[in-house]
């Protein structure tokens, strides 16, 4: 598979799987305002997914449209990072996952705005406002939960400690990522990681949360299609109708 197509699918898969997970909260959030905000983030990510998939499909030239890409690949063909497929857990888990992702996503998308590929730069430009809002929102919530009650602090710290090992995969560049750096598309890993650590560190300080060791062991594999056991269940549910009624138009 072409490196650029692969990279675009990674971007789309991250957004789709997180959007799918967030949509499970529909009608079940801890407050009406959260329901709305989370659905909003889910919708934004879904919109971004469609843009990345559309471009990937065009570049690939094999006639795959967004739905073919979303609904007709099995787990090993998905390229999202492991972080995104981790279960929703409680709201602190969901928001911590979101904050880790949003921080990386913001700096990435900001970097992609200057990509040597105009289409990618355009999509990034279009997403930047959304992604900026996501980052502000999740950072703000982490601060309020971390520095809120004793209960919320404990839950958020537990979520941070739990999810930390999934936070590093985005910076573990393989040949595909590196090819994108070399092509003037993706920002380099260390640059993103430095920004990420700085921002997470600042927010955690304000949130009175302890930051785990940056050099802790990090899980990886998702980008290369080696996932956790969660993804299969997510896909079985998400893809049911397309699989059960092949060839139907909806």
């Amino acid at each position: 598979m072409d490196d650029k197509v692969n990279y675009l699918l990674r971007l789309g898969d991250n957004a789709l799987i997180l959007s799918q997970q967030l949509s499970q909260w529909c009608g079940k959030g801890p407050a009406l305002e959260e329901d709305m905000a989370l659905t909003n983030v889910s919708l934004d990510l879904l919109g971004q997914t469609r843009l990345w998939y559309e471009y990937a499909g065009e570049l690939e030239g094999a006639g795959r449209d967004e739905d073919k890409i979303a609904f007709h690949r099995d787990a090993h063909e998905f390229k999202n990072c492991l972080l995104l497929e981790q279960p929703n857990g409680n709201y602190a888990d969901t928001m911590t996952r979101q904050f880790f992702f949003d921080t990386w996503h913001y700096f990435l998308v900001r970097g992609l705005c200057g990509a040597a590929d105009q289409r990618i730069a355009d999509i990034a430009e279009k997403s930047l406002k959304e992604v900026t809002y996501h980052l502000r929102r999740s950072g703000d919530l982490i601060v309020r939960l971390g520095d809120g009650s004793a209960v919320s602090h404990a839950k958020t710290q537990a979520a941070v400690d739990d999810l930390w090992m999934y936070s590093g995969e985005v910076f573990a560049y393989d040949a595909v990522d590196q090819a994108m750096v070399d092509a003037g598309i993706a920002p380099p890993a260390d640059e993103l990681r430095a920004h990420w650590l700085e921002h997470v560190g600042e927010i955690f300080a304000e949130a009175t949360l302890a930051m785990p060791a940056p050099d802790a062991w990090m899980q990886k594999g998702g980008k290369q299609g080696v996932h956790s056991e969660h993804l299969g269940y997510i896909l079985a549910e998400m893809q049911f109708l397309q699989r059960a009624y092949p060839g139907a138009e909806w």
Partner: protein
Amino acid sequence: GAEERAFQARIDAGVKIEAKDWMPEAYRKTLIRQISQHAHSEIVGQLPEGNWVTRAPTLKRKSILLAKIQDEAGHGLYLYSAAETLGVSRDDLLAALHSGKAKYSSIFNYPTLSWADMGAIGWLVDGSAIINQIPLCRCSYGPYSRAMIRVCKEESFHARQGYDIMMSLAKGTPEQKAMAQDALNRWWWPSLMMFGPSDAESVNSAQSAQWRIKLFSNDELRQRMVDQTVPQAEYLGLTVPDPDLKFNAETGHYEFGAIDWSEFQNVLKGNGPCNRERLRTRVKAYDDGEWFRDALVAYADKQAARKAA
């Protein structure tokens, strides 16, 4: 008393009542009940649709459904706010919902069993809701009427999107067409019941009509829904599950069969397929969210203390 007469005169003159205005206690109570019931319906109504959002068959349909569910949360917000202008808190209203004291629309006690139900709910349930709600845009209580104007505008999108789903299915494979017909079969009668019992049976109607918080009778609105929907069903090539349905050329209306009100009463009593689950899901969401809401308060308190210091 004189206040009541002046109040009624304002209503008769088409002047809106606002939150700060004097109003009879019964008017306030009736409105709180009606608005909060409507708000609860928006919130509980997210669940049957949320049941298919993770399984929507295309990314576009998923996106439309997500946006719809988000709108419903928004409607809930406007309506709770409108109710709050009458001097009741959202938490109190939610407590009444969770204890089973307050009602929400019985239609949401039916399960969503296939993707076609996302179409049928938009088309029939939102369709009926709009018919119910459009007159309320002109109701006497200002905050309520303004909330309904916003709600109705969005609901008409939802109804059209629902019809669009039905259209795709009706034009689709034989399985899809059967799915659409099955959904119509299951949602038709509950949708007619959404307008409530025949007015002959309804106790509070006369007073509410006088106050202009009920502008048409249940039967009038129901007839409007049938007249609007039957030709749409025909256009889809689907069969309305009512052997007695026929067009009366003289009146220009469709005549329809007798509604099984015992089913309505039974669902209202708590025996619908999903009453227990719907309420349980909401109560669980609220209870699970308590620590979160408390945390936001704790943080705000700390911030306030820091500023004061």
